[in-house]
């Protein structure tokens, strides 16, 4: 797990059904870690998602092939958070 202290600005890698991208985790830094699901909007995790519910949603969304949407639920695979919050 890679961590980065960038002035209190937590980021991490989120897996969107195979597509991975860096996402700002600052708003959910105190509550998410590897394996958690988050709602991502324009590069920001805006909410932590209940895991059992998220898996269900994730499978449905993958099936519907909407990977170009800006708004997505993905899994945190590599948090880079200041102070070891993740």
């Amino acid at each position: 797990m890679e961590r980065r202290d960038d002035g209190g600005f937590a980021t991490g890698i989120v897996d969107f059904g195979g597509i991975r991208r860096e996402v700002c985790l600052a708003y959910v830094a105190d509550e998410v870690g590897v394996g958690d699901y988050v709602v991502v909007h324009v590069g920001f995790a805006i909410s932590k998602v209940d895991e059992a519910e998220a898996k269900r949603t994730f499978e449905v969304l993958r099936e519907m092939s909407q990977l170009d949407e800006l708004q997505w639920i993905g899994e945190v695979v590599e948090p880079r958070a200041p102070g070891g919050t993740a």
Partner: protein
Amino acid sequence: MRFLSEYRDPAIARTLIDRIRRTATRPWTLMEVCGGQTHTIVRQGLDELLEGAVEMIHGPGCPVCVTPLEQIDKALVLAARPDVIFTSFGDMLRVPGSDCDLQQVRARGGQVRVVYSPLDALELARRNPSKEVVFFAVGFETTAPANAMAVWRARELGVPNFSVLVSHVTVPPAITAIMEAPDNRVQGFLAAGHVCSVMGWTEYEPIAARYRVPIVVTGFEPMDILEGMLMAVEQLEGGRHQVENQYVRAVRREGTVPARQRVEEVFELADRKWRGIGEIPMSGLRLRPAFAAWDAERKFDVGDIVVSEPAACRAGDVLTGRLKPPDCAAFGTRCTPDHPLGALMVSAEGACAAYYHIARHRSAERQAVPA
């Protein structure tokens, strides 16, 4: 994977539709607030499946669609400046301004770039210190935390050549305006799930009580929307008017508090025009004075641009449920996604574009069937 098979099973959708039909003793009129929900409803034909039981009015929850003409015109002025790199989410590029759109400005040599996140625009500013980078900060409460953070980071990192053209709107004043309209037909709302992921739902409780209207926080999948509809219809049939949460997996009552706090630090409430609807008091966000140095309207002195809407587009009637898109005289003829008269025909989340694409898809399906 207990939920997976259930979710893929069309029988669940049929069950929900049957339950809505059995529950409704009369036709009810609901509004889905969010453009993402509109897209799902029209694409999946949920409105047609529930004809006679539930009528869906497609609300003003598409940020591209409600961005007022004058903010587009300001964007066009800024994007045409040789010293400016203008950055925006992709779907704003084809929204018609008074004379042209951002894509045409780019074709004439303007530096217009599509970004995925406002942080990408900030990074562009850091890499191009000799240019002014302006980001078009549009959206609802879902996007406000991202845009607030970009401005916050610009101050924190000391990036003087970054600024934002703000056109932010908020949902609760729009719901209030719809309920206050003398010819309002909306009897219940599906509130936008991701707006509530950030904001929670406490703001909606006084609205539900005051107007005696059920408000159900609802997600974006077909099952979510059908379940949200069922919850609203059950409330209406039972004479209840509460805020309920269908989108349990992603929404808590208090929302995501750190995100709300950052929005509050950077933005303050302001009157805002909505395209096709007009001004709604205290329905928008603007930068607080402490962040004035990153306000593109001040920096480039375009705050005085005021324009009125063209009469040809009846977006206001669509957004308030007085007109269905196919009933508009311009629909599919003078107004198409390639040549839109108004913003509702541009964005995938716009009601007019959703109807246009689904109608074309269905007529193609019919043609494909051998005689």
